[in-house]
């Protein structure tokens, strides 16, 4: 018996490109292949010590590959904080090889939190609490490297339980930083009248953790029933005249079926000016997950389209050019009563934000203004609910819309949807972090790209260092108390 001669067969995937990533086990920097199989995109990589790993990075290859042309040239910051030594992502940052400036900076003012969520990329708990002086010097450094810094977001831990948060917000405003946000679970806003009044006077945009409209969702992601507290906090924000952006962490088998309802809820709530969807990042604390079926940006887009009864089409969501375009997509809606018009229906956004194929920008007299306005809207620093963003919206779409008479309320009519897929050890792509425009500021004057901070080990390093420093200071203070002055 002779077996038939062996026949060659085709691989079941397309090899798309080679990039660099990290080993999910030991964080070593390793090569990674990006492959396409059944119209889905996967990252496949091998660590010499820990073997092969594979995980999905996009459930729609067409969207993934198509986003490349939205890649805008970066802007060089005024100053760098580190040197190129060990190569990306070990030199953060920013090192002179970084390809973009910081549009949106974060300061994590503490590690403590008044919740203990099973899903928490910051792994909130015991650690450090920054002093006002530290935060001020970080803000000064931010101004130094950016010149004209756009957005600062105070985060944590839970920033609202830091006793000096109001001073920190004021310090950012005093330095002329255009937009200040606080990133909160809303618990203190729901309960503390004095704190709410302080926030109302300072008027930051509230980045409000809001994962869904079902109690089970909160039980799964936050470990507690929080729905009532969330609703109360939002109602109080509306009363206080503060703007909120809902931030929903989306996890497979938990709340992927709620994305449409979250958008609808946000559109109707008087305090809410936008929704940000963030597929759960599997860093810090997270619930068990399968890297092959995690949620990616197209899942959320399809979810919104399918769950909102025809309000949206896929083309309403456009990649953000300032970061790497696979990191984030945005859409803007003009809301007038029950009429909701996505901006991409009024304007051929593709033609304004396509930087690769260079299709001619429409020959309108104000085309340059429109392009500039769109770049402002499709950037990581566009903050929903601000006059600035509303102004850009108006400039971009002005002639196409029947805008309301009252200028002061324009921002009430512009609604933003953003979907951000932060990287974890399975999806970490050096190509993306190298052009990251979201930076975590550290007290030693660095700005570390957010996804590098979370995945590569910077977070752990800096937390340990700051915690130790504070511990030593406390011990010195206590032991000095015992001694009488000479």
């Amino acid at each position, binding site marked *: 018996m002779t077996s038939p001669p062996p026949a060659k067969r085709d691989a079941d995937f397309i090899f798309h490109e080679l990039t660099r990533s990290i080993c999910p086990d030991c964080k070593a920097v390793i090569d990674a292949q990006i492959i396409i199989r059944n119209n889905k995109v996967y990252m496949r990589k091998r660590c010499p010590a820990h073997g092969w790993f594979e995980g999905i990075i996009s459930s729609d290859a067409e969207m993934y590959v198509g986003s490349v042309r939205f890649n805008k040239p970066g802007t060089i910051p005024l100053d760098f904080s580190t040197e190129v030594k060990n190569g990306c992502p070990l030199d953060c940052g920013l090192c002179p090889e970084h390809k973009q400036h910081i549009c949106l900076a974060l300061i994590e003012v503490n590690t403590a939190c008044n919740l203990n969520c099973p899903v928490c990329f910051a792994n909130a708990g015991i650690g450090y609490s920054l002093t006002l002086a530290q935060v001020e010097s970080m803000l000064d450094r931010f*101004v130094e490297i950016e*010149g004209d810094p756009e957005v600062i977001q105070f985060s944590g831990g839970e920033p609202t339980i830091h006793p000096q948060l*109001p001073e920190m917000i004021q310090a950012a405003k005093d330095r002329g930083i255009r937009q200040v946000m606080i990133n909160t679970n809303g618990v203190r806003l729901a309960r503390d009248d004095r704190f709410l009044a302080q926030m109302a006077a300072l008027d930051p945009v509230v980045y409000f953790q809001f994962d869904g409209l079902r109690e089970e969702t909160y039980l799964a992601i936050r470990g507690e029933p929080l729905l009532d507290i969330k609703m109360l906090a939002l109602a109080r924000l509306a009363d206080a005249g503060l703007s909120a952006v809902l931030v929903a962490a989306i996890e497979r088998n938990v709340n992927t079926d709620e994305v449409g309802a979250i958008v609808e809820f946000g559109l109707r709530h008087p305090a809410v000016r936008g929704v940000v969807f963030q597929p759960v990042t599997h860093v810090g604390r997270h619930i068990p997950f399968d890297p092959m079926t995690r949620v990616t940006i197209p899942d959320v887009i399809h979810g919104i389209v399918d769950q909102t009864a025809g309000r949206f089409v896929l083309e309403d969501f456009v990649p953000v050019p300032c970061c790497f375009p696979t990191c984030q997509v945005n859409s803007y809606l003009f809301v007038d009563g029950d009429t909701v018009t996505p901006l991409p229906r009024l304007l051929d956004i593709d033609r304004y934000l396509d930087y690769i194929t260079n299709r001619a920008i429409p020959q309108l007299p104000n085309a340059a203004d429109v392009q500039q306005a769109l770049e402002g809207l499709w950037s990581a620093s566009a903050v929903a609910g601000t006059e600035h963003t509303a*102004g850009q919206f108006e*400039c971009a779409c002005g002639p196409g819309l029947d805008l*309301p008479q*009252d200028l002061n309320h324009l921002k009430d009519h512009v609604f933003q949807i953003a979907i951000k897929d932060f990287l974890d050890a399975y999806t970490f792509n050096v190509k993306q972090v190298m052009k990251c425009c979201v930076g975590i500021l550290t007290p030693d004057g660095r700005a570390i790209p957010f996804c590098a901070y979370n995945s590569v080990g910077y977070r752990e390093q800096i937390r340990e260092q700051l915690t130790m420093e504070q511990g030593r200071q406390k011990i010195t203070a206590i032991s000095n108390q015992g001694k009488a002055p000479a």
Partner: protein
Amino acid sequence: MLDTYAAKICCADLYSSELARLILGDSLHPGGLRATNRLGRAMAIQPGWRVLDLACGMGASATALSRVFRCHVTGLELGAQAAAASRTRALSEPVPSNVAFVRGDAETPPFRSGAFDAVIIECAASLFVHKADAIANVVRLLRPGGILGLSDVTVTPGSLPPELDGTIGMMLCLTDALPPDGYQAMLENAGLTITAQENLSNEVLTLLAELRTKLNVWQQFTTPAASPASDLAESAPALLSQVEALVQQGQIGYWHYAARKPA
């Protein structure tokens, strides 16, 4: 004399008008608080210093400086509305600042000699009617070794087209602005030594871009009859483009200077 005073009051009221606030916001100069902080750093303002903000407008700089540099600030302003607004601001901001406000004429400031470690004049010196006398007065208010921080719009003499001599020109502080070496000479003639100077002309371009968006929005939304200065709004876009071009050509700019009084 009375006429000059009336003119000043009129100018001062222009800056505190609704229109000015709509267009400029609370910080009535290019670069906003960013530029103010830069000037404060160039002056090396120290914690505990007594600082005078001459022609402080809505008081945005004074309150911010007092918190950022941990100094005491006195704001002097002639415009009634602005003076009132700055007082309200200091009282109502949730984070306390160390600021007092006085209503009065910056050209005859009601303070004793040597009362201040530093004086700051942002986008206002060009509005002073008797500039040399006013600066001489500032020098009197400074302690020996004290420092003056001055920022202003600069204009090359003869470069302004007539259309820019009206309200818009005044609002942009163009009307009576000096060239960069004009401010230098003014400070040096008053016996001060310039320790730092910086070209912040880019901030004018940023401000103009913002103005353009605001006017754009504003025009879309206000019916001509209802708007307070519709003729202005109509001609504004063309004027803005003109200013933009002049900034790009270097005819219009924005500079700041730090200058020290001999010890």
